[in-house]
């Protein structure tokens, strides 16, 4: 006991004041606590499954006419009970997104009437300009972080794979064209070697992709996109991380401006 006391004797008043400040900080809720206690919503599991499938359909990731996995497979995959999946499929049927056929080749299918482009048009019209700009800022930040790392880490043969994917872009099939461009974008950011950043990019790409189909129909903006992406690829191959970031920002600016132009034309 005695030795402990004497060890504390030399502490100066500044250290004591510092301690006091620290304990005041500890008593105050931290800035992050605000987000910690945000509402997590009270959506039931069936509703979460429904929302996940609905966004895949309206986003065009499950195509019209495509067969959904079986109820049991979906239940295992989502980690929920088969009855929960059944409940969500019922809701999707009532929204007209899914149809169910009986018989040997039966099952649940994406409704033929589910048109992702129509959904994207509605979504774009309902999105404010500030939200579009913010989506662009988020997308640019993640992509820029990825290509900065990719420029430092990728080897030329890997970059060449992205380039050969871009070379297969075919304007005669716009759906294929968009999915090839999405794949090339993901393949490029995966060269960052960061799983977290790549997953975030995929999430953002899935969000943007249906809206990008709306600007793909315009020849000028369609042809601008591969060229803009190619300049990011060039910078990554050259190992020039600053140019890769700058080229990414030019690419995202062009896309967001095209979306905003389209939005103001249709208002």
């Amino acid at each position, binding site marked *: 006991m005695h030795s402990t006391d004497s060890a504390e004797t030399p502490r100066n008043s500044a250290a004591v004041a510092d301690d006091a400040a620290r304990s005041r900080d500890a008593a105050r809720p931290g800035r992050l606590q605000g987000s910690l206690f945000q509402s997590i919503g009270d959506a039931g599991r069936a509703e979460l499954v429904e929302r*996940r*499938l609905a*966004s*895949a359909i309206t986003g065009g*990731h*499950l195509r019209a006419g*495509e067969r*959904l*996995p079986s109820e049991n*497979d*979906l239940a*295992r*995959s989502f980690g929920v009970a088969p009855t929960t999946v059944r409940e969500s499929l019922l809701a999707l049927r009532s929204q007209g997104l899914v149809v169910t056929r009986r018989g040997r080749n039966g099952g649940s299918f994406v409704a033929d009437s589910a048109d992702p482009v129509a959904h994207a048009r509605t979504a774009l019209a309902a999105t404010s300009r500030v939200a579009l700009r913010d989506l662009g800022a988020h997308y640019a930040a993640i992509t820029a972080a990825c290509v900065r*790392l990719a420029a*430092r*880490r*990728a*080897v030329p*043969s*890997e970059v060449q*794979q992205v380039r*050969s*994917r871009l070379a297969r872009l075919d304007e005669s099939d716009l759906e294929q064209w968009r*999915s090839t461009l*999405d*794949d090339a974008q*993901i393949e490029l950011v*995966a060269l*960052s*070697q*960061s*799983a977290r950043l*790549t*997953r975030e990019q*995929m*999430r953002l*790409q*899935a969000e943007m*992709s249906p809206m990008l189909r709306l600007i793909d129909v315009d020849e000028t903006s369609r042809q601008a996109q591969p060229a803009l992406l190619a300049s990011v690829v060039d910078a990554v191959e050259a190992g020039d991380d600053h140019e890769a970031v700058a080229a990414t920002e030019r690419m995202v600016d062009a896309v967001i401006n095209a979306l905003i132009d389209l939005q103001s034309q249709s208002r």
Partner: protein
Amino acid sequence: MTTPTSTSTAARAAAIVSQYFSAPIASLEATALLLGTELAASGNLGPLSSQQIDALVEPHALATVALPDVHIYGAGFIATVGLLTDERNHLSWWQGDDPKRLLLAAQSVNKEHIDYSELEWFRVPMETGRGHVAGPYVDYLCSDEYTITIAAPVHIDGTFVGVAGLDLLIDSVERQLLPKLAELGDKVTLVNSVGRVVISTDPRHATGDAVRGGALAELERTECEGVALEIIAE
């Protein structure tokens, strides 16, 4: 230049790495051969559906994932485009600690439509007819993690029909292999064939970094027998 100490360290490290990968590779090659035979037998009865393929592949995949000593995250078979009657791109793949068949629906960007024939783990065995170690790379198709994929071609009567594969997460490789390499005492870095750091006992060498242009670039590399990885000892 290379000192006798680092040479023997490199050789011992390479032996540890070869030993670590030997069981998964042997299991995968046996699976690829067996699958070829079983597919040929089923194929004789008529065109194959994805359900038939899944039934054939599942026991092999589950046995591979359950191998002792090496933590295997996922395993399965990927048919070449057009092999199956009902699906263009079918992944017969089981993954996770409680392995479940991978469903690609609704997870992200068009995973269902990703053309995997361009991906290294599929392309190289298809083109060379030989097994291949791909990665480390971000596997955005199956594991969604930083991964090494070991793949072997499957043939029916000499015709390529797809790839049998298994995934090792770099996270597991680090946990399982790094302590063994650290016991050697010297700084040891495992790199792949394009010079990317897989793991290193030197915390300054980050997984995923390229060795080119850095201090490691000039050092001698020692091949690990049976697996296309190399050791750099400092």
